């Protein structure tokens, strides 16, 4: 084997040290801390702590509110990932058809991504506020009793809409790139073979976008699980009645509001395991169906 040699045995370690340091300090250390804390019982002031083994986990998993949170998370994540990807794909396909001003449209489409989650949440909260929201007038005009502050389903709808809206830009960008990578001649061949636009999309475009879609599926799942904290915090604070309290929000709520440090740590460990399992599942089973060019 041809090994590259360094003049110094220490140099290679020095060269990777910055990256290692960042990973250790910001990823592994907190993860280990969480794991350790999840097995401690601590008083709210942090004055004394006691090792309790897996008691925190047992408690958390027996808690009805936690099971509710898992269900809320599943509904929220699936809806958010689905809508943000479906709408982004629709917009990307439509933007491809524009001849003049395509760049302009694309630029506009990217802007929502630059809006901070908390601000995006506030925007949606204001727009759909039952008493003064501009857009709240629309459901009311349709005869719907609109009140996301009291109605859990409507609250869920609102956070899903806000979270999807924010992620559409990101997905849009990737879908546009994915669409551009599909050779035009394939679509022409399919048109000559007799396929109309809809059939062309489902038989050629959609399968060839699979690598992009799969990547976005993984990214969007992680987004919905973790990065939507700000939106939920701003729009509903997990309410009404825990109907929008996702796992990540419950970690925050139990740890920093209710000061149940041990329980919160146990929850974040479980969340970590869920994400690892989910990602592994996606790579193991979904990716098989993906055709890479």
């Amino acid at each position, binding site marked *: 084997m041809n090994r590259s040699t360094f003049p110094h045995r220490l140099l290679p370690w020095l060269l990777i040290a910055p990256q290692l340091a960042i990973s250790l300090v910001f990823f592994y250390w907190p993860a280990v801390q969480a794991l350790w804390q999840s097995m401690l019982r601590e008083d709210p002031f942090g004055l004394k702590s006691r090792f309790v083994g897996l008691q925190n986990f047992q408690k958390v998993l027996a808690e009805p509110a936690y099971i509710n949170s898992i269900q809320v998370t599943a509904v929220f994540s699936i809806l958010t990932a689905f809508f943000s990807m479906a709408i982004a794909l629709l917009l990307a396909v439509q933007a491809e058809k524009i001849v003049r001003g395509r760049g302009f449209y694309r630029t506009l489409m990217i802007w929502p991504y630059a809006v901070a989650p908390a601000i995006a949440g506030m925007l949606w909260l204001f727009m759909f506020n039952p008493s003064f929201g501009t857009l709240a007038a629309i459901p009311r005009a349709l005869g719907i009793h609109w009140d996301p502050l009291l109605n859990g389903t409507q609250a869920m709808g609102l956070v899903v809409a806000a979270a999807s809206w924010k992620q559409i830009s990101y997905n849009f960008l990737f879908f546009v790139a994915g669409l551009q990578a599909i050779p035009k001649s394939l679509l022409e061949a399919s*048109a*000559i073979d007799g396929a109309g636009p809809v059939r062309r999309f489902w*038989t050629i475009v959609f399968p060839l976008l699979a690598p992009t879609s799969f990547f976005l599926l993984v990214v969007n799942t992680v987004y919905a699980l973790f990065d939507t904290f700000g939106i939920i915090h701003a729009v509903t604070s997990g309410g009404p009645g825990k109907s929008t309290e996702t796992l990540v929000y419950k970690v925050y709520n139990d740890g920093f509001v209710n000061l149940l440090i041990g329980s919160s740590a146990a929850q974040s460990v479980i969340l970590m395991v869920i994400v690892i399992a989910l990602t592994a599942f996606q790579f193991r089973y979904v990716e098989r169906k993906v055709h890479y060019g």
Partner: protein
Amino acid sequence: MATLSLKDVRKTYGKTDVIHGVSIDIADGEFVVIVGPSGCGKSTLLRMVAGLEEITSGTIEIGGRVVNTLEPRARDIAMVFQNYALYPHMSVFDNMAYGLRIAGVRGDDLKARVAKAAEMLDLSTLLDRKPRQLSGGQRQRVAMGRALVRDPAAFLFDEPLSNLDAKLRVSMRLQIKDLQRRVATTSLYVTHDQVEAMTLADRLIVMNKGVAEQIATPMEIYDAPANMFVAGFIGSPAMNFLPATVTGSDLLISDGSRMPRPAGLQDGGVILGVRPEHLTRSRSAGPGTLTVRVLAVETLGADAFVHARLGESGSEDIVFRVPGHDRPAEGTVVSLAVDQDKVHIFDAATQRRISGM
């Protein structure tokens, strides 16, 4: 199977004309090749027939039906693309069955038709493979199969062989010709390769800058090119062009050599065109011969092409063909007899053919 007819077909992008009025009637089962240098508009013309480009004016008829505004799928055509355009996520079978399935063919009928086309193209053992598992030649055959299986009114080929290596190109050329004879489907074939054009075509359309310079059979084009562009484009190596003057009883070449005056010419400047194969070495110099100094010899085996310069101090380059075993040495001066029956005379100003053969 159907006739294909173009009537004064034009294409304009903004103010730029890319196709200047092409007209041709293609008989049922005829193989017509559009040939020309890159950028001459040949692919655009084909794509207009396919319905992938809009027609600015004129009419295109397939099987007697005007298809100007019809979608590609309504035109009953099949096309073979330069990069094959195989669907990468589908097997060879699915690629070939794609059009049939859309047309509503199902079950055993579908299988039988794909199997028949696969057999004609020797693809029967490859039906389960994906395109990326195939060689270039196999992909090309699948692309052919996809066109063949649908039994369309016309085949359109857009430089289908240009991504293959030289040897494969020759065998595929024969295969395409043979296949087209057997199924007798009207075909329009675009290429920039004049050998491909000559060998495949029943009739040729030689295009240059959006103009169909000449439409005729390969031999008519070789024997009587309509102008200097066609004369220079068809034939390899290209025809030699020598400026000359018609005066008295002679045709005076720029280096001072004299040829007999062809009949029916007025006095004045013309261009004399001689193909490399119509120049032979002669023992004696004199009227009807050219004296050249040999610059370089390209040996091909059976033949050799000799690049030479006209006259003692001339500036005209000339190429002629000699048998492979009888090559002149570089730097020597040789005399060449010009086959007077096979010279071409072009107008110096319009570049059009005036006379010859």
